[in-house]
């Protein structure tokens, strides 16, 4: 499995909890302890009520596919070399339908379809030191 194509910056407090959740086989999303709303992308304050009390909650993980593409050309980018073609897309988590997550997609037969239900499978990267969710049809 060639995902993740690049390594995240785990020193970033705002963005690393998403990746740390993967190590525990969880999709964690930022939730406001005051108003209870999720938001995405991760922000230092809740964009709904401006509270700074954000907690990352484990969510079910299942998503509905909103749109997808098949990346075929590597654009001369080193991290795409020998890793295309690949499927990637935007998917709406059951946890909150105002959020769209970027999802790496693995489909064995046929193509992704908008509206398809997908679930994350946590796989280990090529180096063996990082876990990443790859979404497959339910």
């Amino acid at each position, binding site marked *: 499995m060639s*995902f*993740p*194509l*690049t*390594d*995240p*910056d785990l020193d*970033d407090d705002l*963005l*690393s909890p*998403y*990746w740390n959740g993967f190590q525990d086989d969880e999709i964690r999303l930022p939730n406001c302890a005051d108003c209870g709303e999720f938001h*995405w*992308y991760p922000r230092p304050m809740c964009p709904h009520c401006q509270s700074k009390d954000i907690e990352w909650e484990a969510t079910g993980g299942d998503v509905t596919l*909103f*749109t*997808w*593409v*098949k*990346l*075929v*050309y590597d*654009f*001369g*980018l*080193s*991290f*795409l070399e020998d890793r295309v073609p*690949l*499927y*990637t*897309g*935007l998917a709406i988590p059951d946890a909150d339908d*105002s*959020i*769209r997550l*970027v*999802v*790496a997609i693995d489909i064995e037969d046929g193509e992704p379809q*908008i509206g398809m239900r997908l679930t994350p499978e946590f796989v280990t990267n090529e180096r063996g030191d990082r876990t*990443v969710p790859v979404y497959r049809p339910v």
Partner: protein
Amino acid sequence: METVTKQSKSRDLRDVTAISGIGESEFSEGGGNRAETLIYDACRGAIRDAGLEPAEIDGVVTEAGMMPETVYTQELKEMLGIQAEYSTASLLVGAGNVISPLLAAQAIETGLAEHVLCYFGVNWATERETMGDDGGPYSYHTEDEYKANLEVPFGWVTQPLYIAAQARRHMYEYGTTTEQLGEVAIQTRANAAPNEKATKREELTMDDYLDSPVIVDPFRILDCCLISDGAAAFVVSSAEAAESGPTDPVYVKGAGAGSSEKSESTYMTQHEEYTMTQATKSGPKAFEMAGVTPQDIDFAEIYDCFTESTIVQLEDLGFCEKGDGGQFVQERGITVEDGDLPVNTHGGLLSQAYILSMNHVTEAVRQLRGTADNQVTDPELGLVTGWGGSEHATLILGSDRS
């Protein structure tokens, strides 16, 4: 008594100024160009075209995201021999070039400047040849912390991918077809054919389009705009000054900008109205200021970063119903030769050059002067759009005062 609204006040700027001169550098697909020399070429050309001496330029306007990194304003003023005390830049990313005339008009109307030079240029074609992952228009993705952590690792990277995903959704919601995307490419290319400055002029057939390589399904290479080296510039002056100059004045009639509720880093994935652009906001402001409707427009230079983008903006501006953009291009046509609405009369970003709509403004001026290579018959009103992710701008120019 009519209520004074923000928009009714903007009508006060209609026809107050005109574009008095235009200039362009050579456009190319690379070759070791420096962006600043291309910009100087375009600026000198515009000042000369306006019949002015450099010392008569007393204002400069550009966009704030890319240009200050490309050439220091102070260095540009020194090289051109201008001492413009008034200088400003917009924060609308790729839409900035199309709002420059409005900023210039405000300066002229308030007496801060008399002749304002607007400029933009890139050498992304040369940069891409030499800089790999770190140069050109793709470096933005790996540098933005959100994209680097939440998108790129999962394969979501490059502008063609973002808009291909939008095209997929647009096909799903409205039945837009691959052939309709192809029609945008083919007809825009047909508009490039007579244009001596177009990078790509050879005819495209539907077979050519369908046989061309898929780069990010549903997009083919021909769905994507060029990567270019080139610059363009124009001078905005008071209408009276432009009328006494050597060229036919092209009046700044209306302009407006629209911004998304989402920031630039999240716009392409989180934007609520996913198959719309902010043309839905910028268009009405420009039409209101100009006192015209889409039906009055004789040609449109649309920010065609991708074929899908032409389709979506035609819908969002009100040239057709939402979802019917593909059908509009396919059945009513956008060629100068026999389209109902000529679009990208110079071949656009797709076939002329990717100068982020600065070249769309200069083409619109030529059309309204009657000096274009692919000339629309006696146009009176032209529309130009600029687009940068979450920001959009619309400009309306005319050959006569209202």
